[in-house]
């Protein structure tokens, strides 16, 4: 997939910005605080209907304005153009998405149609942060590769919130735990599906990480990724078998749950374990190993999505070179450029190798005060 052009209206600090992109590398240059990341965020909206980090649509609306509008022309690998339009109004707090003029049945049905891979400074918490940071990473990959997964996760979360409400009511005011019964079954029904999807995903994803890590690390290190469920689940288990174990575990933890007032069993409490040569990454790895691991995860994500979605993901790199040395940056850029279309924000053009040729496919934009100016092409050498 390629993003041919994008228009931003009243989005963050961009009042009215239009960009015609190159088909390989797009450099978004400029000083801090001028709106480079905001453009990547707009591209994320166009591809996923949402931001890769902002929690709400209201936050990205330009201060003092009552609507924002994004428009994009997206070109699929087989050459079909799609027109994506997103409009948000503050008065109704309502977002509308139009793909080729039609509203999709649900936002989640759009996820995966236009796959993207994002690497941004916040991503360091995938390897450094909590289990929930790792689950978020995993969810976005699985979601982009499986439409039903998004539905299953949303239903699971809903069942979980409903069940937690009963537990917290009982823990505070007492009451009959019989009310839990129907919600146990709903939780187990959707939770088992989520669990199996995740366990199967990691079985498929592991070789991609091995390959990606080998391609970018100099040392002989073996990365491992493992999904650690709190309800025992193997990739080839049937949903019913997982469901039975889930129920048994709920029964076992019932007293604790009633006392604490929330659900203690299920995929919302699972861990994703990363390790190198058998040592847990979080506890033992150096800064450099963390960084390499993260980049390997993203490269693996790229190839995984490319194969599963039958569509080449667009790669968004936000300020990722500040912590990498010059040769590493240039190696990474060269690797990523060979993959497909990339959007790279940086304050310093030096991250690009001086022999890079800015032509029609590789374009530079300077972002200043919420406006974008495209540089002229260089004359052919």
């Amino acid at each position: 997939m390629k993003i041919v052009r994008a228009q931003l209206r009243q989005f963050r600090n961009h009042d009215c910005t239009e960009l015609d992109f190159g088909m390989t590398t797009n450099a978004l240059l400029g000083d801090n605080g001028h709106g480079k990341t905001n453009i990547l965020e707009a591209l994320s909206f166009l591809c996923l209907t949402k931001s890769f980090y902002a929690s709400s649509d209201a936050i990205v609306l330009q201060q003092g304005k009552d609507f924002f509008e994004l428009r994009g022309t997206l070109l699929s690998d087989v050459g079909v153009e799609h027109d994506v339009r997103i409009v948000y109004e503050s008065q109704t707090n309502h977002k509308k998405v139009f793909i080729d003029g039609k509203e999709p049945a649900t936002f989640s049905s759009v996820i995966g149609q236009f796959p993207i891979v994002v690497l941004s400074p916040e991503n360091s918490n995938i390897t450094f942060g909590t289990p929930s940071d790792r689950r978020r990473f995993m969810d976005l990959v699985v979601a982009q590769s499986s439409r039903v997964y998004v539905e299953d996760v949303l239903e699971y979360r809903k069942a979980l919130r409903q069940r937690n409400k009963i537990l917290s009511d009982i823990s505070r005011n007492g009451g009959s735990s019989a009310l839990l019964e129907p919600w146990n079954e709903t939780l187990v029904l959707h939770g088992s599906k989520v669990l199996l999807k995740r366990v199967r995903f990691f079985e498929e994803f592991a070789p991609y990480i091995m390959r990606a890590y080998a391609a970018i690390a100099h040392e002989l290190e073996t990365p491992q990724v493992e999904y650690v469920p709190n309800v025992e689940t193997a990739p080839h288990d049937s949903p019913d078998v997982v469901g039975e174990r889930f129920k048994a575990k709920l029964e076992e933890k019932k007293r604790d749950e009633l006392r604490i007032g929330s659900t203690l069993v299920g995929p919302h409490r699972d861990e994703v374990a990363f390790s190198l040569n058998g040592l847990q990454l979080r506890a033992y790895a150096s800064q450099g190993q963390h960084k390499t691991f993260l980049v390997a995860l993203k490269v693996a994500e790229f190839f995984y999505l490319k194969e599963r979605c039958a569509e080449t993901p667009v790669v968004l790199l936000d300020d990722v070179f500040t912590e990498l040395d010059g040769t590493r940056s240039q190696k990474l850029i060269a690797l990523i450029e060979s993959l497909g279309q990339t959007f790279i924000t940086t304050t310093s053009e030096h991250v690009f190798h001086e022999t890079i040729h800015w032509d029609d496919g590789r374009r530079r934009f300077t972002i200043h005060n919420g406006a974008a100016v495209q540089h002229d092409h260089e004359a052919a050498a």
Partner: protein
Amino acid sequence: MRYTSESVEQLVEEFAQLPGIGKKTAQRLALFILKLPREKVVTFAQALINIKDKVRYCSICSNITESDPCYICSSPKRTRGIICVVEEPRDVMAIEKTNEFHGLYHVLGGALSPLDNIGPEDLKVKELLARITDDIEEIILAMNPNVEGEATTIYLSRLLKPLSVKVTRIARGLPIGGDLEFADEATLSRALEGRIAL
């Protein structure tokens, strides 16, 4: 924006309270009403008052009706041995449109939802149990295909199990997260035909 007329202002406020209507739409509607002929406005206003004065709930099935029992409950043409349990009156309308179902209905008035403080005692569950006699052959559970509908289905099927009446639910085939109301007629007919024993 303020209007020079208090009446317009008031009508805008009233419209703006309706679900899905923002301030701008409310203004458009109010100005539209202003341009209508008087008799049209009277018919409209009377329709609003009628819905409050004449409409009540059927004492058998809890559907909305103007005569009690409702025309479905009192029709000699309906199969009296089958009761289809739904969440809301609009679900009855959706199923009636398919012309596939000729039994009776029972409207629960919602689905279980602890977050909205809706428990079994807030739904017409006792009334449903009271309707189950030896003449009832089948209860069809036709809740919305979402987690609340699912939990309600599970709750009712457990409650009905000891009563030795056949309990079925409509097939999933409906779009996930959707409402019965929005399912097209063909999908809904298929869901009714392919019902599953519980």
